[in-house]
């Protein structure tokens, strides 16, 4: 990426609207999503589920032995917001839109979107389940109200 594309007019990192698929430690996450499987890292030494972002070693026991394991896809909204401003042109016609912190039942938290309902109907503590949104080169995990 050239310097100009990487910057906004005040010199800050320019936002983008696509996943960073080349992030080495995250590749299993994106590969599994293409098959509609939501996975998180789990330590084989102590059983701990890793928080996001992905990392090479377990933050609890520092073991390097971990793998990406499937999760139920069920979770709870810890908090949510509604964007009324688009920081990237791709979102200009989507405002107002929801962004939520979703606590998976297994523990790890994802930043994601609760979809299928108007943003004003999203609530703290709401039970949600994963849905897969396919794009040309990647699949995004999003969430809808359970049941």
């Amino acid at each position, binding site marked *: 990426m050239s310097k100009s594309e990487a910057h906004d007019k005040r*010199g*800050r990192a320019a936002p983008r*609207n696509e996943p960073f698929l080349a992030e080495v430690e995250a590749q299993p996450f994106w590969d599994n999503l293409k098959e509609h499987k939501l996975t998180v890292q789990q330590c084989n030494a102590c059983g701990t589920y890793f*928080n996001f*972002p992905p990392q090479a070693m377990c933050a609890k026991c520092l073991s390097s032995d971990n793998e990406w394991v499937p999760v139920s896809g069920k979770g709870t909204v810890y908090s949510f*917001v509604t964007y009324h401003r688009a920081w990237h042109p791709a979102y200009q016609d989507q405002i107002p839109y929801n962004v939520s*912190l979703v606590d998976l039942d297994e523990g790890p938290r994802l930043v994601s979107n609760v979809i299928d309902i108007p943003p004003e109907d999203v609530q703290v503590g709401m039970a949600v389940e994963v849905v897969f949104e396919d794009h040309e080169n990647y699949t995004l995990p999003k969430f809808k109200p359970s049941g």
Partner: protein
Amino acid sequence: MSNLSGKYAVVGVGETQVGKRPEATTNSLHVEAIRLCLEDAGVDASQVDGLLTNQPLTDAHRSYAVRLAHMAGIDPNYATDLALGGATPIAMIQNAVMAIEAGMANYVVCVHARKRATPDPTPGYPIRSGDEHWEQPWGHFSAVANHAFAATRHMHEFGTTSEDLGQIAVSTRKHACLNKNATMQKPMTIEDHQNSRLIVEPLHLFDCSLESDGGAALLVTSMERARDLPRKPVQVLGMGQHHPHSSVMDAPTLTTLGSRRSSEAAYRMAGLGPKDMDFAQFYDCFTITTLITIEDYGFCGKGEGKDFIKDGRIEVGGEIPVNTHGGLLSQAHLEGIMHVTEGVKQLRGDAVEPERQVQGAKAGVISGHGGSLCMHASLVLGVQ
């Protein structure tokens, strides 16, 4: 009580004009702040042997502190960049105290400047926040939104409302209107706050801090040396930090932050508590940050902030004046370094406009907060 408490002091402060400084560069604002600080302290650059600065967010030089020192005629025995976001200005004072105590330096300049209101003519390469790979694909971009997560959660747990947050913006604006060097000079009402546009709900435009040009610097030395200098020394009584998580994705809670443990450490070192404080300069990148900080620093119980901030209690003349300079919300956003210079000026007793001077101020507490609500530093200052 730690034996470092009261041993070191701030003996000089420099504040540039804030707001729009199209003629300035990031570098020139830093040097201007250093010059004003050294003039105030009556200390020559050749006497200064330490310099601390904030890692620049958009013009990341290698070892910016060394570059700056030599732009300002300083030949340092101790220099480094610190990188704790809005907790950095306080961390600089803390590191200055530690460096002097360790015998590495005698006079340490702490400086930060920003150029965010007008374009920098020579932008460099930006640094990463570190979380964007796990936020941007879902349309999540901004510090506003991370703080809006905290606001939604505070509203859910404690019944706080947007109008309650508006009270913080309104009280802060009152102070800015009494400060000649504040960007915002027009009084604000709760209605103005409610009518300001939603940015990331539940936060409105007037819940958000400014984008500013400007800079400030402080000079730290020992109380022993301070006695030979012209300004009334303002002593560092207490210091603390706590960084309880690294992003919103690993935060155990967003309604109690590093501010709790950091302030406890600073009060313990000072041998003082919230009741001993004559003012508080609390980092206010967003109104919700100030509300959580007031609670975590023990001025009221958790969840009681929404009632505590009413009736002028956080205004000059009230129980605990907060952000007597107008804060990041209404004076200028310089990563909180002017919260520290304002604390020093209030304790000197003759350095701010009389209308916003806290009468008889002997001790005050200052907070710094950075990153995705994940970094915190505290400072208790006082005069004899």
